[in-house]
């Protein structure tokens, strides 16, 4: 497996082996971040592939002082946002029900789990719907910060780089996002439902 430095050197030299290694290492992260931004798997794949093609063709724009991952996430995030903007201009003719369900964050459950415990399945679906709903209640900026930190493992500083914000702003958005999620989900049972507010 190539390390980041080798991949960067390879990409700079348009080395196809380095490009493939790069794709293999980052495909899941890029896809899932794209999925978080655009909300459905078909568009997520499309965006993720656009990102890799863009990287392959315009790696010259990468600043070698920066971290490859941060740069890639920024490209992905921006590609996702661009995709949504483009899509907003083209109304969907037919909405696929399954797709819609996925975009609401309802994970498809395997047939075996559904048959083995229907109650658990219903509960899991409810939880997924609740989480998806809670995420809709946070502002786009708070959501972006939360998704990048919580599901895509970007450090606060990396998120700041990605979204062109200060680290302080990122912390602030994230704090507010967690608080809103807390309200939407109902206070978890650590303190018997009491919402803390002091200071």
């Amino acid at each position: 497996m190539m390390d980041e430095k080798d991949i960067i050197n390879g990409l700079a030299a348009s080395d196809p082996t380095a490009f493939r290694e790069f794709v293999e290492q980052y495909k899941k992260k890029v896809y899932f971040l794209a999925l978080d931004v655009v909300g459905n798997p078909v568009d997520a794949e499309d965006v993720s592939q656009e990102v890799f093609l863009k990287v392959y063709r315009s790696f010259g724009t990468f600043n070698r002082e920066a971290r490859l991952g941060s740069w890639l996430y920024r490209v992905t995030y921006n590609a996702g946002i661009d995709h949504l903007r483009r899509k907003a201009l083209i109304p969907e003719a037919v909405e696929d029900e399954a797709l819609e369900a996925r975009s609401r964050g309802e994970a498809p459950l395997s047939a075996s789990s559904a048959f083995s415990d229907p109650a658990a399945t219903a509960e899991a679906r409810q939880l997924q719907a609740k989480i998806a709903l809670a995420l809709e209640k946070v502002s786009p900026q708070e959501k972006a910060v939360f998704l990048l930190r919580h599901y895509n493992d970007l450090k606060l500083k990396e998120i700041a780089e990605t979204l062109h914000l200060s680290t302080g702003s990122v912390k602030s958005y994230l704090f507010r996002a967690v608080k809103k999620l807390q309200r939407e989900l109902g206070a978890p049972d650590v303190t018997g439902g009491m919402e803390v507010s002091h200071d």
Partner: protein
Amino acid sequence: MISCRKCRDMMIEALYGELRPADRESFDAHLRACPDCASEYSIMGATLRVMDERRRPDPGPEFWDTYWDRLAARLDVTDKAPAVRPQAVPLSARLGRLFSGLPGWTWQAAAGAALVVVGILIGRSIVSPPGQPAGLVSAVQNPAAASAVPASNDPSERARRYLDRSQVLLLGLVNYNPKTQDLYALDLDGKKTACRELSLQAADIQSSLKDPRQKRLKELVSDLQIIMMQIANLGAGNDLEGVDLIKQGVEQRDIFLKIDLTRMTLGAAGPQGPSARPGSQASGAADKAKMRI
């Protein structure tokens, strides 16, 4: 001790493990002394644990296994137009230098002739055993023969032809010895052009190999595609260092062995026998026994 406000400021970093050790100590000390902050921190942690339950639909292993193929196909399609244009530059420059005024097909003929030279040189070290079809040798001597066969719609047959052409090209490269051979015998520009074409064909062939039993064949075509792209992207001029790296890659990945095995799986009905490359693992013990050097 830090204030409640300061403690609150640190909560996000603490929750995500981004607090510096010194700050973590003062943060923990505050929580021990302040039940309100401790409670708030605990609730935020619990909220995040609920958010951990969020499931993003994983498209599954098949999606991930074929992700590269789809991307490579897309890369080929979108790059096809610009990929053809740059070829005109070295082609015309070379023609201008060597055969000014001659039509374009003369270049292909010249490339074929150069490969014939490679074939003859290879022939010094490789001799087909009696009775065995000399397909590989003849193909090396005349690579056009390998590609001049009418196109087939059968994916396996197309893949087999692809293996044949790739092997011919690779043999010319791998057997090139800069100490004993002229650079024109290597004909790197001609090979780069051919490899560019082959790398474009690979995506199409891969997408036509849909039978799960063809998985290995598909993987081999994918491996060859990478090598073809590497050759096509070699530096301008005679990038012998790059050629060496590609040779090493071919060795390390046992490409010739894989081609032989795959061809055997396909029935070995084609015009070419095992790739008899001296000193290569590809030849295998049985093949080595058949060879006379």
